[in-house]
């Protein structure tokens, strides 16, 4: 059960331009990812939007494995700034979880 809230989104937006709400979950990013991780941008962003910080913590290995190659971003039909969003989430995890 995820208790939906806006804490993560508010935190991310205070750090920069987090524009993942534009995503309409087509899955192009997941299909194109050269790393082929089991969870990729689409779903990570949904967890962020839903305020599920624990889910992001559980998936930090994947989040930090992103190459920031921007293959997905170039092809995103909605023009989501995927790599920028990933960096914002990394920043959040660095500070909140890893205490960096």
């Amino acid at each position, binding site marked *: 059960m995820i208790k939906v809230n806006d804490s993560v989104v508010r935190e991310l937006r205070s750090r920069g331009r987090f524009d993942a*709400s534009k995503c309409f979950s087509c899955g192009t990013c997941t299909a194109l990812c050269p790393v082929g991780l089991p969870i990729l941008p689409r779903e990570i962003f949904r967890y962020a939007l839903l305020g599920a910080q624990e889910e992001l913590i559980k998936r930090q290995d994947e989040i930090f494995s992103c190459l920031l190659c921007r293959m997905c971003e170039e092809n995103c039909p909605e023009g989501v700034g995927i790599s920028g969003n990933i960096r914002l989430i990394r920043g959040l995890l660095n500070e909140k979880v890893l205490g960096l």
Partner: protein
Amino acid sequence: MASQKIGVFVCRCGGNISDYVDVEKVVESIKGVEGVKIARVNMFSCSDSAQEEMIGLIKREGLDGIVIASCSPKLHLNTFRQMAQRAGLNPYQYTQVNIREQCSWTHTHDRDGATQKATRLVRAGIEATRHSEPLHPIEVVTRPSVLVVGAGIGGLRAAIALGEMGLTVHLLEKADRPGGLVGTRKALFPTGADGTSEIDSLLQRIHTLQNISLYTNASLVKKEGSIGDFSVSIRVEPKDGQDRADTIQLNVGAILVTTGATPYVPKEGEYGYGAKGIVTLREFLDLLDSSRDSDGIYYEGKRVRRITYIYCVGSRQKEGHTYCSRFCCSSAIFASLEVHKRSPDVLQYHLYRDIRTYGSLEALYQRALDQGSLFIRFSPDSPPKVECGHNGGGIKVLVKDLLTSKRELEISSDLVVLVTGLVPRVEQQEVQDVLKLPVGIDGFFNEIHPKLRPVETVVAGVYIGGCAQGPKNAQESVESSLGAAAKAGSILLKGKVELEPFVAEVDEGLCDGCGQCVEACPYDAITMGQRSDGTPVAVVNTRLCKGEGACVPVCPKEALEIRGYGHEKIRSMIRGLLTE
């Protein structure tokens, strides 16, 4: 008299027919049949060159009737009727035999069987032409006036269009003021136009047109007559100072039904409806409309910070309202944009099955995504659950999100908007009873053909527009109502209308006035009249008769025939079918 020099043309339809039916054999086997002068095969009968060739043959050979064995008459009956006319024949001395849909396409595995069936059908067609007589369409003079039932945005717009054509328009509204669903709305999607002022400007236009009369608190109570000349009664409820209702008689040439639809009202407890904080789309729009200048969203005095929308409430159900109501996705998303604009800090969650913001309305959806609305997709098998006010808490909506591997989400909400669609109006029943209009399984009025004849009904001279036909947004309602106005205008401005001559005829010498045909007719086209000697006899109103034929078999005296389908012709066609 009947045709004795008949030309029979059997079509290959490229190979559509001849690949499965031996068309040469069909032609061979009907040569020598009584009345047949020539018989031959065409490659494509409908092509210009084949038509010219047939016209030449009709003239050269002095043919007085033709049979074309080709495709369904739904496709080319009128093509060949017109060709017959160009060749100087009466178009009703042409018979089309369908050996494509009924032979080649249905019996692809059985060439002999298909060929034999085609031969028999062609023989019956020859008998039909042999016993045909020249017929002429029935011409009906039309009155240049029209009744429009329902003064919502569609009815008003149609009335203006008809008024501007110079026709006399009687516009009826059941409520005490015109405007319908749009009339009370402050912001219409997609532009935010004010519905109230749109309706006001239409009303102003109506008041400047002398030939439009508007009746409010009025209903249609009776209809007699038929296309071109209806006689209707309307009842106008008493106004202040009057003690009884007025009944007004009007004569009109056509009737437009623009009675609209009504928002679905959820059942008590459906998604928590009835509890505080749970509102329908209409109630939510009213709330937004009543607080246009406010900086935030307030519900019962409290500021709203989290709104959850549940889509498809009362639409796309397994049983009951199975249809999509079309306007609700766009309307709800447009409302959420207003919320984003007024207070960007409000969180908005849209629980949907499919988003149907079709055409350019897609831009609304894009804007909502962009501005932070979160869309959560649920399966119709596990709809959201709404829990209200347990242990003093607020409203909680539970939903399984298909886009996050069906994870269960719990959404605390200050306001839940049930995005409700449209259903037929209860009052529609009166109009349905008076006009005898058919309705579809969803309860809305039925058109003849959804694509080709979208505003005509089976009752000639009665047209439908707007939501009376099914859910539509304001734009679509106006479009279809204007379509209905154009169709009505086309028969009324011409001053006459032509009807098919296939109507019932009574042989007065045989009729004994038993009245069974009166009972059998579904169109009330037969009444009991009197001969000059006072004895009863059935009388057919040819403008009401559809030539449907229910009266023919019930007559114990065989006194009724459908013109163009007489007893002798039908018997001969059956004999033709049975000939080996």
